[in-house]
């Protein structure tokens, strides 16, 4: 049985979510199961009313990085949430919200985009992670 790829998403900026969604879709395309655990600001970006909004970029992007990202978007780059939808269509991609972060942000499961499959704690995350790699983004 193929070990899953486990992505812990913490940052909620569009560049990091884009990079993470590329990793998830690439793994799904080769049949590798993917578990995504959403914490803090990444979880906030998955709220139904915010998922399509501008979530900014990591500080190191600077003004030049902003221009580069905008240029890619104008050229038709698939937004990160659509890449994740395609990844879920393609393979086994399970996206779970961290229950602690739900409390921290004061949000309910109903506030989250349908991309999110459920809510779990860190123990359940490690249980599903098996011996697969865990990446913190």
């Amino acid at each position, binding site marked *: 049985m193929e070990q899953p790829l486990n992505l812990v998403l913490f940052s909620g900026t569009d560049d990091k979510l884009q990079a993470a969604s*590329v990793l998830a*879709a*690439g793994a*799904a*395309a*080769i*049949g590798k199961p993917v578990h995504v655990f959403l914490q803090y600001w990444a979880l906030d970006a998955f709220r139904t009313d915010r998922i399509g909004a501008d979530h900014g970029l990591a500080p190191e992007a600077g003004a030049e990085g902003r221009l580069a990202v905008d240029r*890619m978007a104008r*050229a*038709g*780059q*698939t937004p990160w949430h659509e*890449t994740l939808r*395609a*990844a879920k*269509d*393609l393979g086994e991609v399970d996206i779970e919200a961290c229950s602690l972060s739900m409390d921290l942000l004061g949000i309910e499961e109903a506030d989250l985009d349908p991309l999110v499959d459920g809510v779990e704690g860190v123990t359940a995350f490690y249980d599903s992670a098996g011996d697969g790699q865990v990446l913190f983004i």
Partner: protein
Amino acid sequence: MGDDQATLVVDARGLNCPMPIVRTAQAMKALNPGDIVEVTATDPGSVRDFAAWSRTTGHALLASSTDGGLFRFVLRHK
């Protein structure tokens, strides 16, 4: 291999990584063993990506060619 032999053509021109692979994998799901898929792409990473994807998934890469900035791949569903 000419276009007339392809069961399906995937136009991935203009798409960034990983979408050429994602679109091809999505298309493959609806096809049957032996079906031929032809892909055109402009993502420079796609040459190595399609070779790797073929090795990992078992869908045979029958042809991989480059014409300037245009890449063309022919795959056979396993």
